[in-house]
């Protein structure tokens, strides 16, 4: 750990009013030596330049909901709190685009957009408390993924603060743009390892006129799978289609016992089409011998919370698998029930498994199956010894890009492994 005296330069980058208590920023049991909360993109850039000069390691953080993604950081000297960047920079409802600073929470953004009958079609775990910067840096997705455009589809442009102390932009604020390289895509999901996102522009959508949320409690997973695909193949206006094992369903308020599997379906659209979706869902339920009922919004927010990382016990393992939709049910079945919770978002092929009893052997077996199906496995939360398991894309290109954008390893060093 860098001695505190080396960090004087970093502290000096911002006035005293922007200094914070380091005790408020632990990451996996470690505390930084310095905590700063700039209130402008320039302030962020100054902190990074100073950190680079001091050879200090910076972890940018907003709502601090996903700091366990990737490998544990190898060094942690400076907590860079982005919540001071809280302006909505520009919002043109008639253009359906909005530009916001990275510290704005999704909750605040959605509230502002709702005033004009619009919203950003993302429902990341654990909830709307995430900041826009964190939303982009982690690219975590919820049940809407695969049915509605995700954050990767909605981001139009970005401004990023670099370790050199500059501000760099790409894209723009228009919905169609092929000018140059899409740095905004490079930074989406980059876990804050290549730059600190300070603002971004997004495409927004009109809020749906009507919505409905239903649970189909199916006797077993085969019937649940059939029900889910039938709802999908009827081209019903789905915004979410999830499968829950009995543990997960019970936790979110839909009481079932194994081997019952629950299909959670959410629909949106004009009132007539949502009514049709409800009618057809009842028809599907009947044929699959499932009990069907409307569920309140709480069910969905509770499901989002099941993928929470912060506040989980150290031993909890949360794994995200990507497999083709046709393999979702078999993956859930392979996990089994008991002391594990498993649920999936069918359209995106996203399967979550959560529990304290997941071993390295189990994870590697799940990963092998995912690979065989052309998919992937990512460990989102786990004790340190399990964090080396998981996919992270092309390592050589990742290391090269890391070396070019952050040669001194100022930002989140070690997130991508020893060399990055």
């Amino acid at each position, binding site marked *: 750990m860098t001695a505190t005296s080396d960090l004087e330069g970093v502290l000096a980058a911002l006035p005293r009013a922007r200094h914070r208590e380091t005790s408020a920023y632990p990451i996996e049991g470690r505390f930084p030596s310095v905590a700063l909360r700039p209130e402008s993109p320039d302030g962020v850039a100054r902190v990074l330049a100073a950190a680079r000069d001091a050879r200090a390691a910076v972890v940018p953080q907003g709502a601090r909901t996903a700091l366990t993604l990737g490998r544990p950081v190898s060094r942690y000297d400076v907590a860079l709190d982005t919540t001071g960047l809280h302006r909505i920079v520009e919002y043109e409802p008639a253009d359906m685009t909005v530009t916001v600073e990275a510290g704005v929470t999704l909750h605040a953004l959605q509230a502002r957009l709702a005033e004009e009958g619009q919203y950003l079609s993302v429902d990341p775990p654990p909830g709307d408390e995430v900041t826009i910067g964190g939303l982009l840096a982690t690219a975590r997705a919820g049940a809407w993924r695969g049915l509605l455009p995700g954050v990767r589809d909605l981001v139009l442009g970005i401004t990023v603060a670099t370790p050199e102390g500059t501000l760099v932009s790409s894209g723009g604020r228009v919905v169609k743009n092929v000018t*140059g390289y899409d740095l905004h895509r490079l930074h989406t999901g980059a876990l804050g390892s290549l730059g600190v996102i300070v603002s971004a522009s997004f495409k927004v959508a009109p809020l749906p006129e009507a919505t409905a949320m239903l649970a189909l409690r199916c006797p077993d997973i085969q019937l649940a799978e059939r029900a889910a695909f039938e709802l999908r193949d009827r081209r019903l206006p789905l915004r979410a289609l999830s499968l829950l094992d009995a543990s997960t369903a019970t936790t979110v308020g839909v009481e079932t016992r194994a081997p019952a599997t629950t299909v959670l379906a959410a629909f949106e659209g004009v009132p007539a089409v949502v009514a049709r979706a409800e009618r057809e869902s009842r028809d599907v339920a009947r044929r699959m011998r499932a009990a069907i009922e409307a569920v309140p919004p709480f069910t969905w927010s509770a499901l989002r919370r099941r993928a929470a990382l912060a506040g989980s016990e150290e031993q909890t393992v949360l794994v995200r698998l990507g497999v083709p939709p*046709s393999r979702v049910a078999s993956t859930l079945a392979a996990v089994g029930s008991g002391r594990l919770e498993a649920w999936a978002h069918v359209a995106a092929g996203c399967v979550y498994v959560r529990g304290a009893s997941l071993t390295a052997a189990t994870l590697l077996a799940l990963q092998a199956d995912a690979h065989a199906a052309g998919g992937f496995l990512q460990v989102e939360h786990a004790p340190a010894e399990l964090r080396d398991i998981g996919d992270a894309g092309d390592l050589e290109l990742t290391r090269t890009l890391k070396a070019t*954008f952050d040669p001194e390893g100022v930002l989140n060093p070690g997130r991508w492994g020893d060399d990055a």
Partner: protein
Amino acid sequence: MSTSQPTLAVLVDELTRALGKSSVLARPEELIAYEYDATIERARPDIVVFPASTDDVATVLRLARKHGVPVVPRGSGTGLAGGAVPVQGGVLCVLTRMNRILEIDVRNRTATIEPGVINLQLQEAVATHGLTYAPDPSSQRVCTIGGNVATNAGGPHTLVHGSTVNHVLGMRVVLPDGRATFLGSRVPDAPGLDLRGLFVGSEGTLGIATEIVVRLVPRAEAVRTLLAIFASIEDASNAVTRVIASGVIPVALEMLDREIIRAVQHSRDVGYPEDAGAVLLVEVEGLRETVEQQSAQVIEALRAAGALDLRIASEAAERERLWEGRKSAIGAIGALAPNFYLLDGVVPRTRLPEVMRGVEELSARYGFRCGNVFHAGDGNLHPNVMFDSMEPGATERVLALGAEILRLCIEAGGAITGEHGVGLEKRSYMEWMFGADDLEAMSRIRLAFDEAGLFNPCKVLPSGHGCASAHSAELTHHLATPGVYV
């Protein structure tokens, strides 16, 4: 910066031994056909190769790199920004023989294709399964998916569905040094850096995709196509905003002005009214109930915006006719003038009326007729400036007009290219949109993939090593031929 003859001779020999004689062209008379794309910028490659597999592509790139010879990828050559023009000669790597659809996975709604598959060929193959591949550029009868990936191609249906990057899940890619890797996955949100997202739209400068996994969407249950007639472009532009403000996002929202309508009708009767100032082609799709309600909302919005008349295509044949008119628009202009300059700019939708007024004024000031056809819903404009290149000074004036129009787009908060790409044509305009630090970051990305700097040189970024910046090298204008699409 050109390669020596002895080096080329060795390379030709090695490529021929690796790929076979029928896959390598090196005689001057064979190379001529490959010196241009849909622009008129010309440069002759030294060698043209036709790989048949990922291994072939890897071999080509590895060998070329070994000898320090540039490589330029090419699909069907319909690019509108000079992206496939081999300005420093070298090896032109043509992907058209890799044209197999490897898999259509109906249950998972994906298709895996080789880069030389023609866009329309993919559409037709998946249509039989009730599915569609959403990005549908007007050049779809000719353009390849690989080219679509390079340019992040859009099309009239981008408004709802997005462009190519929103539909590519993963790709096998050969990097400039010959190493093959996989970017993305078969499902969205692969962990790690979004190299997939970075690659799509990189205009063939970061490598060559040899297998592409795309997602498919179900065909809509119902569709309704409307043609709304307006007295002026301004009225039509205002109508665009009203339609979207009504809460409906049409799946397509295209505008054509009087010049274009007349050009199209001149070549065949597709039902466009020749006395209109502008028309809007609006399409709503979805489930029956959705289309019912939304088309009523759209009609109300169009009437409130001053539509003089509305025509609703009540059956498939009529819908086809209306679209045929739109998609053949650029080719039709060919009949009206010896040459035309096709522009591609984008502005926030709400700024369309004032920008279109500006385009009209500027064209008049420069003394050129200009026809406008564009994706109004996205604010993506395509002014077509008609001129005669044989007239002294006309070409220079047309280029100057084009630059002013692009400036207008930027001042309105837009961008210098909505879908055609930067390529050769717009490199020098990059500085209008991006600062030195931004461009430097972009060049670092390029370098991370292409350390040697030999891959599709002189494209996208303002003047790199050895890239000619003489004014004549920046000239780009388009021959009016039926083979050009927008």
